[in-house]
C-alpha cells in the first residue's frame, strides 16, 4: 500500500511540474507587466528600467532556465507588486484559506450528512421535502450574492455579526456560512440518495432481523456504507473551496490565497502566480490522499484493491 501512495506521489509530482511549466509560459505570453505597475504617464525609459530590473528583457527560455534553477531551491522569485519573496506571500496567505476551507467543509459535511441521513430515513416526509428544497436552494445560489445578502441581513439589519475582517470568532461566522452553503446543499443530496439505497440494502434488513433499534441502524449500519460517495463529493468540494474562496476572501477581507491569486493575476505578478499554483496543487494532491485514506478506513474492500 505504501507503494501505491509512492506511485501516486510520483505521478502527482510529474503533473505538478508540467503545471508549473505551463503556467510559466502562458503567463509570459500576456506580455510585459510593466504597464500595470507604472503610472500611465511613465516614460519609456522607466518601462525599460522596470523590465530590466525584473529580467523580462531576457529571452523567454533564458528566463525559464533561471526559473528552474531557483525552483530547486524553492525560490519562486520576488513579487512584482510587493517586493517580497513570492513563496513567503503564498505561505503566509495559505493558513487563512486552509482554515476557511477546513471549517467550511467540516461544518457542511456534518450538517449535510446528518440531514441527508434523517431525510433518507423517511423519504417524502415533510422533513425530507423541506431538506431537499433547502439543499437545492443552497447548492444553486451564487456565493457572491449570498455573501452580500448575508451581510445586509445579518450584519446590517439584524446586527448579529460584524460585516467583515478576520480578528474575532464572530467575523468568521458569515464567511464560513457562505462557503459551506453550496457544499452542504450538494452533500445533502448525495447523502440522501446514497442513504436511501443503503437503507434498502440486504444487510440493513439483517440488522432489523437482529433487533437493532432505528437509530443504530441509521448511524451505525447504514451510515458508514452510505458515506463513500459522500466522501468523494466532499473531497471534490474541499478542493474547490481552496481555489474558490476568492469571492468570500475578497468581500470579507480575508487575506487568503484566493485573493492573493486574483490580485496577482490581474497584476501579472508571475512569481506569485507560480508559487500560488504550485502550493494550491500540492494542497489538492494532499486532499486526494486524504480521500483515499478515508476510503480505506471506511471500506475494507478497497484495501485489497490497493495492493
Amino acid at each position, binding site marked *: 500500500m505504501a507503494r501505491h501512495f509512492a506511485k501516486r506521489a510520483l505521478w502527482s509530482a510529474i503533473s505538478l511540474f508540467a503545471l508549473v511549466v505551463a503556467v510559466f509560459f502562458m503567463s509570459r505570453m*500576456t*506580455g510585459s*507587466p510593466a*504597464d*500595470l*505597475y*507604472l*503610472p*500611465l*504617464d*511613465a*516614460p*519609456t*525609459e*522607466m518601462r525599460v*528600467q*522596470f523590465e530590466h*530590473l525584473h529580467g523580462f528583457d531576457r529571452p523567454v527560455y533564458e528566463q525559464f532556465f533561471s526559473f528552474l534553477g531557483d525552483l530547486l531551491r524553492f525560490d519562486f522569485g520576488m*513579487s512584482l*507588486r*510587493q*517586493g517580497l519573496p513570492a513563496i513567503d506571500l503564498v505561505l503566509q496567505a495559505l493558513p*487563512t484559506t486552509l482554515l476557511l476551507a477546513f471549517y467550511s467543509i467540516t461544518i457542511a459535511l456534518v450538517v449535510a450528512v446528518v440531514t441527508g441521513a434523517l431525510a433518507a430515513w423517511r423519504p417524502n416526509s415533510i422533513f425530507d421535502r423541506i431538506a431537499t428544497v433547502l439543499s437545492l436552494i443552497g447548492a444553486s445560489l451564487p456565493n457572491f450574492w449570498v455573501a*452580500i445578502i448575508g*451581510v*445586509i441581513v445579518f*450584519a*446590517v439589519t439584524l*446586527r448579529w455579526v*460584524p*460585516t*467583515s*475582517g*478576520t*480578528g*474575532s*470568532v*464572530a467575523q468568521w461566522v458569515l464567511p464560513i456560512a457562505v462557503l459551506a452553503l453550496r457544499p452542504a446543499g450538494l452533500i445533502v443530496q448525495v447523502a440522501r440518495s446514497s442513504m436511501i439505497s443503503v437503507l434498502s440494502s440486504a444487510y440493513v434488513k439483517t440488522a432489523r432481523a437482529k433487533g437493532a433499534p432505528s437509530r443504530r441502524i441509521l448511524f451505525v449500519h447504514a451510515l458508514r456504507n452510505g458515506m463513500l460517495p459522500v466522501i468523494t463529493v466532499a473531497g471534490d468540494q474541499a478542493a474547490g473551496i481552496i481555489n474558490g474562496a476568492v469571492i468570500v476572501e*475578497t*468581500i*470579507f*477581507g480575508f*487575506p487568503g490565497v484566493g485573493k492573493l491569486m486574483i490580485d496577482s493575476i*490581474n497584476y*501579472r505578478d508571475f512569481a506569485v502566480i507560480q508559487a500560488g499554483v504550485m502550493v494550491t496543487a500540492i494542497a489538492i494532491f494532499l486532499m486526494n490522499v486524504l480521500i483515499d485514506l478515508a476510503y480505506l478506513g471506511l471500506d475494507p474492500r478497497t484495501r485489497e484493491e490497493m495492493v
Partner: protein
Amino acid sequence: MKKMIRMTGASILALAAMWPALGAAQDTALTIALPAEPANIDGCNTTVTGIGVIVKENIVETLTTISPEDGSIQPRLATEWEDIGDGKYRVSLREGVTFHDGTPFDAEAVAFSIERLQSQEISCLDRTKIAGIEITTDIIDEHTIEIGAAPAQVLMPTLFSFIGVVSPNTPTDALSRSPVGTGPFAFEAWNADGVHVARYDGYWGEAPQVSEATYVFRGESALRAAMVEIGEADIAHDIAPQDAVNPDIDIPFLNGETTRMRIVMLPPLDDIRVREALNLAFDREALLGTILSDRAQIATQFILPNINGHNPDLEPWPYDPARAQQLLDEARADGVPVDREIRLVGRIGFFPNQEEVLQAIQQMWAAVGFSVRLEMMESADWLRLVNRPYPADREAMLIQEQHDNNNGDAAFTMRFRYHTDGQQSEMNNAEVDRLIDTAEQSVGEERTLAFQEANRIIADEVIPAVPMYHMVSYMRVGSSISYEPNVLSLIQLELADITFN
C-alpha cells in the same frame, strides 16, 4: 440524545461569550474602509492612488502642497523658496520638526529623500512626475538647501509637492511597508486587520483630533457602505452611486477625474465632419442624474476648471442629432467610409456603471447612422492601445480614457496628450505644439493664455476626442465625524481634516 443537546447548548454559549461587543470603539479612534490594499506604503509613492490616501500628509509630508480649492502652492516642510536662476531654487526648511523615529528633520534628510526617489535600485513611482528631469541638491546649512532641476522647471514649486521626505534611516534597496516620516501620524502596524497609525506627539503642527486610525480594505462597495452604516467604519472611501442612498451621510464630490473618448483619426475618423458628428450626436445631459450622478459636470476639455490653463470660454457641445446626420451625409457623399464599423474600446474598472454609459452613447450614435461596436478590455490590453508606440495595425476606433490632473497646472496634461511627441497623443498640429512649448517655458499670464489658446484650438479646430464629464465620487462619512471631501480626496485624505461631532 439528551447528552447531544446539552453539549450543543454548551458550545453555543461558549461561542457567544467570545463574541466581540459591537461598536465599542474608542472616542477618537477612526476606521477608514478603502477599496484596495496597496502593495506598499513607501514615502516615494505618495502620488499613487491607494498609497497616497494613507501616506500623503498623514505619515509622510511633502515639501509643498497644492490647495484643492484654487491650485495654489502652499508651504509644508518647505517654508520659503526662491528662484536663484539656472534652474535652481533656494529652499528654507521648517525648523523644529522631527521624524517619528526621533531623527531631526534637516537638509540632509531632504537630500537623502531626493536621492532615494531617483535611485535606479527601486521603482519609486513618484519619479514619473519628474520624468526626464534630473534633480540635484546642495546643502547650504541645516535648514537651507538648494534644489536644482535640469532642464530648468518653471513649475518647480509644484514639483516640490511630489517630494515626500522620509527618515534617513529608510532602507534604500527596497520599497517600505513601514514608512517613517514627519507627519501628524506615525505608522504602527500593517497586519491582517489593516494599516494602523497613531497620533505622533512630536508633530510640529496642530495636534489633530483623531488619535489613531485603522485603514481596512474591502473591495466590495456595498460592504464599505454597510460598515459605516452600522458603525464598523467611519469613512467608506469611494462607494458606488447605487450604494450612496443616504443623503445625510453620502457626500458627492468632484474627484478630479475627467473622462473622454479618444478618437484614433484613421478613416473615416480622419474627416473632421465625422468627428463633429460624434460630438453632436451625444446627448450629454441625458446621462446626468440617471446612470451618472447629477453632480457630474459636462467637460469641454481634459482638465478641471481649477487648473491653470483651463479655458473658461469654451462651451460644451450642443446636442444636435439632425446636424450630426447632415454632416455624416455630406461626408458619405464625398466618399468617406462613414458606414464602416468603428470599435469603441472601454477599459474595465474606470467608474461604476461605465458599461451602461458606453452602451447609451453607442445607441445615440447608432441613431444617427454610425456603426459602433463596443468592446470592454482589461488594463493590460487597453494600455497597449493607448501608449506609443501604437500597434501598426490599429484601425479607426474610439478609446475610453480617464485622466486626473490634480497638480494645479495644465502642463501635466498638455504635452503628453496633445503634443506631436506626446506619449499618448494622436495629434500632429504645429500651432498647438508651438503653444505648448511656449507655455511650458513661461510663467504667469503668458503661460495661462498660451495653454488656453492651445485648448481652444484643440477643442474647436482639431476635435481629437469626444469630451465627456468631470466625474464625481461618493464618500460615506459616519455621523459621529465631520469631513468635507474635496477634489483631492481620492488620493489624499488628511486625517487632520477630520473632526468629531
